[in-house]
């Protein structure tokens, strides 16, 4: 049943998304791909939309997937479940276990977990870029996209390194939308 799937799927996301918005993306990707709810294209679109609209990215993604798959009720269920773990964990910490995060074993566990997240995020990003550039089909890479990727990466990282000015994500998204229209046609 779709509502139960949404509930379990986004509970997992809410429960394991340590380390902010981008840490949640690989988890959301796992869940939506496993259920066939979104493909890589739609996922990337939604990340861009979530980044360009107010509110936490995780909440935005949950609302969107829920709404696509189960209408307004689905949206409500997915949104509430993605928020629920954070809500209860903060309550627990405030009410009964104010010292739990200072426990050395909890700290050690979190250290291992955070190290793991870095790898997960990095490889997720790389794999999305590789899929996007058609590198999965070695005989037939998408040369135009590869070129654009290198150019946009150069602008993004270059401006930080050489001009000491970082481009904010929303600006980068707008810029790449314009590049997309120009390069792929109107």
């Amino acid at each position, binding site marked *: 049943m779709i509502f139960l799937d949404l509930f379990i799927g986004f509970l*997992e996301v*809410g429960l*394991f*998304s*340590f*380390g*902010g*918005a981008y840490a949640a*993306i*690989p988890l959301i990707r796992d869940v939506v791909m496993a259920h066939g709810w979104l493909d890589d*294209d739609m996922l*990337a*679109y939604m990340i*861009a*939309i979530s*980044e360009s*609209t*107010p*509110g*936490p*990215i*995780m*909440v935005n993604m949950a609302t969107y997937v829920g*709404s696509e798959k189960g209408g307004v009720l689905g*949206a409500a269920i997915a949104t509430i479940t993605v928020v629920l773990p*954070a*809500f209860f964990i*903060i*309550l627990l910490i405030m009410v009964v276990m104010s010292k739990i995060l200072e426990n050395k*074993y909890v700290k*050690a566990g979190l*250290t*291992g*977990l955070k*190290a*793991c*997240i*870095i*790898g*997960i*995020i*990095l*490889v*997720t*990003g790389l794999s999305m*870029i590789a899929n996007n550039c058609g590198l999965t089909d070695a005989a037939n890479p998408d040369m135009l*996209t590869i070129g654009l*990727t290198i150019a*946009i990466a150069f602008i*993004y*990282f270059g401006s930080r390194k050489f001009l000491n000015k970082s481009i904010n*994500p*929303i600006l*980068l998204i707008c*810029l*790449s*939308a314009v590049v997309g*229209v120009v*390069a*792929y046609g109107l």
Partner: protein
Amino acid sequence: MPVLLDLLLTFAKIGMFTFGGGYAMIPLIENTCVEKKKWITHDEMMTVVVIAESTPGPIAINCSTFIGYKKGKLPGAIVSTIGMVLPSFIIIYLISRFLNQFLEITWVVNAFKGIKIAVGILIVDAAIKMIKKMKKTPVQIVLVSVSIILMLAINLFALNISSMVLMLAFAIVGVGVFAVEDILKGESTKR
């Protein structure tokens, strides 16, 4: 104004005007809840941020739950969290109703093709920033490298291992490594 209504409206306003989520909203929360409303102190705000980094879920939710509970116990926490989520919920719900029609226009699709490039770069950049920020102890470096290698293998060979399982395994390894270090330290001090 009753506290609960004040909490609801304040967090709805914060939820409405923070683009990008996460760390982007900390200054706004700080400005509103610490400086203007004096609901929590600056130190408490720092504590929330630290807690948020060690607990799952969006930082925005951690903050609103924490501050809401401080001001109005459980009802306060519930109302604040709802306030935080409501604006983006409504906006995204409306977008989801129209996105598919929108994606039938060719130039919109092409714009999104460009955006997809940016999204990949942003995700890789998020990881790079985390690598720069982390404490570079030998154990950490080994753990991060192993995680990258495992993830690459999972992706290349399309292995069916979820990120969650991997994260749990690393948490256990983290505790294990710590326990071993602890024992070794204990032995060296005994001598």
